[in-house]
């Protein structure tokens, strides 16, 4: 027989047990959601660190390979091709002909070979890691600016402000490669007549700016080679803990700006620092 009217005590038992149950269940679900989201954030942060480390190591390895290639090519130019050309120059000097027109031609060729030898030596030096680290950033850039002015390709101006301080071999090498990439872009694509390079030495901040008065570009109209050249600048800067910014608009030239805190020590995953040699 069914009693349709439960007593207040029975109702109390039902209500309390149901309430306790649902409170526990809801509490568990809320706790799980909070814990899961916390774990998700933690995982995301760890993944980002891993990705950043991987990217940095990848870029570092790429730069090291590039440097090795440059050094090899520089050495080949200096030790092999330059030697052969010197030999050619000597041979030309030894040729004596009666006819003055022919002699003039030979002398002209000798001068041309001498010019090629000088150019190759300069190229070899600009590729050589040892040469750059020996001279330091400022002197190497000064040499490059002189060469640019002599070439007549562009009118280059170098401005150095502040007291020059060393930033470490690898950082200076990377900054020089950034400079080379920017100058290369200017000569190849911009059609600029004037190039302004400024090195700003402030105790807490080093700043390298390369500005040209060329045709400029808009970010979405970049072709592959120019786009990858600019990306190279940004990637190289990242490897030494610097920040590169490139600004340009059509008809307004281009400006590459690299900022580096010389006191900031970013550490590679292998425990080495970018201001030291690998």
């Amino acid at each position, binding site marked *: 027989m*069914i009693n349709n009217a*439960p007593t207040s005590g029975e109702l109390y038992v039902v209500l309390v047990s149901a309430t306790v149950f649902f409170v526990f269940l809801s509490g568990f*679900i809320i706790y799980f959601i909070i814990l899961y989201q916390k*774990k998700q954030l933690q995982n995301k942060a760890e993944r980002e660190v891993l990705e950043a480390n991987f990217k940095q190591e990848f870029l570092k390895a790429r730069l090291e390979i590039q440097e090795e290639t440059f050094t090899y090519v520089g050495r080949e130019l200096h030790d092999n091709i330059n030697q052969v050309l010197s030999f050619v120059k000597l041979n030309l000097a030894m040729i004596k002909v009666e006819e003055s027109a022919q002699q003039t031609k030979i002398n002209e060729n000798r001068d041309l070979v001498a010019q090629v030898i000088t150019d190759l030596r300069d190229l070899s030096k600009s590729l050589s890691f040892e040469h750059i680290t020996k001279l330091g950033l400022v002197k190497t850039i000064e040499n490059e600016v002189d060469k640019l002015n002599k070439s007549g390709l562009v009118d280059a101006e170098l401005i150095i402000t502040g007291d020059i301080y060393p930033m470490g071999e690898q950082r200076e090498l990377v900054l020089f490669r950034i400079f080379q990439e920017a100058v290369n872009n200017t000569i190849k694509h911009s059609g600029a007549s004037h190039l302004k390079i400024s090195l700003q030495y402030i105790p807490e901040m080093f700043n390298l700016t390369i500005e040209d008065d060329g045709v400029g570009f808009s970010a979405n109209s970049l072709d592959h080679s120019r786009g990858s050249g600019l990306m190279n600048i940004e990637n190289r800067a990242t490897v030494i803990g610097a920040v590169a910014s490139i600004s340009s608009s059509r008809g307004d030239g281009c400006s590459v700006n690299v900022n580096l805190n010389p006191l900031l020590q970013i550490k590679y995953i292998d425990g080495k620092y970018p201001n030291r040699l690998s």
Partner: protein
Amino acid sequence: MSFDTIYAIYLLLLLIISVIGFARFKRLSKAFKILTVMILCTLISESIKKVYGRVYHNNMPVAHIWAVIEFAFSAVVYYYLVSNAILKKAIVISIFAMFLLAIANVLFFEKLSQFPSLTLEASHIVYVVYSLLLFRQMLFAPAEQSLFRQSLFWFNINMLFYATTMFLNFALMSYFIQNKLDVGPLVYFSVVVNFIFYIVIGVVLLIDNSKVNVISVNND
């Protein structure tokens, strides 16, 4: 609303979920493909139960058989959701254990004409354990996707809610029967819980996508 009408709506709901599941069958992960088959089997079993009840005035034999089959299906779904090899083995063993328990229950405790509460209660306890273990696994390897967009989360929370709520319902039902109280509200409560359970399963089958699901190595 009469109980027959509610039952018809319940069957219609199962049919809709089966259609959803089979419409998205190719895109579902393996676990939820099995879940879709399970829902279709539930629809068939519930229909048979109704007819059997009309003919023999007692559909409990069907309930006894279905209790074991439903547990096996749910266990297989969890088998494909968990990644731990030991847990997988435990799940396989639990299916055989439940089968033995159901036979023992019919032989010694609840006859074929009685409600298989023992088998169902044991199943619900195991579901809670599975669900908690899966939550643990989720915490160890959280996916990038938002938790609320994960079919796994909704399925697992649904199982936890269903198993614990039905366990409470059975406990209260037993208390009500012992004290000769009207069990009508509890029956309606269980109907509501069942509706919620199947609606959420429908949602799970709608949002699951094997390509974005990174929950388990065996899930594709």
